[in-house]
């Protein structure tokens, strides 16, 4: 996306003969329809997401097809990623007894989110799919359904709902605590799960866009002082790309970890 915007901004002033100053990147530039109209528009992030899923399926199947005891490099990579999600995230959060059932979901979440986030800094794509709010919402809805249904199945509706309230508090406090707890479990948790991922990806990509577009504007349309400053802008873009890579991994990890935490909360007996 950064490349596309660079190209457009290069062409436009030349066509109009005179640039009217720097246009900072806006959220509208994230909307990139390909075909269709209205609510049924097929947009670029949808295409990127589809491609990422096909790529993931293809790579994972191909690298684990002839699984050997002594793994090949590709198989080793997949095993490391899978072990990370299975042991560090799933087993240590949910516990040895029930975690296996949820590992496919958690691994899928982690790998899809990580790949789509990384697309934000990989040059041909440069579009983090999770910066469009619909994608984190869809993933959060899946996690929401899973942890509530898991809790209800394990404990039955009554015990599940009463188990959300901590025991042993002085009686008058309960009037305040009960709406808070239910709002947290049913509204705030999924809200923050989706918004955390969306906000990080959106803001990070806006920053990158700003530095790259700003640097390009300063380089091409500015005086000599601005041209020198553009080096700083491009350097910041480079630094922030590296920072974004870290944030993208972290956000994928946090989403999956919180999904596992909510599942483990729903299944746990103590509170």
């Amino acid at each position, binding site marked *: 996306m950064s490349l596309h915007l660079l190209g457009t901004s290069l062409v436009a002033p030349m066509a109009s003969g005179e640039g009217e100053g720097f246009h900072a990147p806006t959220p509208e530039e994230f909307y990139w329809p390909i075909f269709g109209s209205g609510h049924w528009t097929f947009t670029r992030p949808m295409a990127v997401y589809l491609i990422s899923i096909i790529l993931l399926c293809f790579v994972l199947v191909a690298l684990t097809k002839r699984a050997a005891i002594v793994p090949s490099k590709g198989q080793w990579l997949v095993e490391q990623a899978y072990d990370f999600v299975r042991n560090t995230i799933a087993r240590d*959060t949910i516990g040895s007894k029930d975690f296996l059932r949820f590992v496919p979901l958690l691994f899928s979440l982690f790998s899809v989110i990580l790949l789509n986030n990384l697309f934000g800094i990989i040059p041909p794509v440069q579009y983090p799919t999770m910066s469009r709010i619909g994608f984190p919402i869809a993933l959060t809805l899946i996690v929401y359904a899973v942890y509530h249904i898991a809790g209800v199945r394990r404990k039955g509706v009554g015990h599940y709902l009463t188990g959300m309230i*901590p025991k042993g508090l002085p009686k008058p406090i309960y009037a305040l*605590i009960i709406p*808070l707890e239910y*709002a947290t479990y049913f509204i705030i948790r999924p809200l923050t799960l989706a918004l955390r991922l969306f906000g990080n990806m959106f803001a990070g990509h806006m920053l990158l866009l700003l530095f790259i577009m700003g640097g390009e504007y300063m380089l091409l349309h500015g005086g000599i002082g601005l041209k020198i400053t553009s080096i700083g802008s491009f350097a910041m873009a480079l630094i922030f790309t590296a920072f974004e890579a870290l944030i993208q991994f972290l956000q994928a990890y946090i989403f999956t970890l919180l999904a596992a*935490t909510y599942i*483990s909360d729903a299944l746990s007996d103590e509170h």
Partner: protein
Amino acid sequence: MSGPTDEPDLTPLQQKDAGHPGRTTPPMWDAMSYVLAGPIVFGLPAYVGDRLLGTNWIVLPGVLVGMAVSLYLVWVRYGSD
């Protein structure tokens, strides 16, 4: 842990996995959702009350009460004792 009271035969994989009890305290990112929930859950009715009654001062105590309750809840759930 495996023992005579568990299922009779744990597969080798289950034996390798045994001994991880799972988290007892959720990570701190979850506490953040409590801290956010407090002001929202108590501030929103306070704001609505303000709109209905035409006043403008109910929101502030509502948000403060919500923040206090949520911090208390975080302390109850995640505090050390």
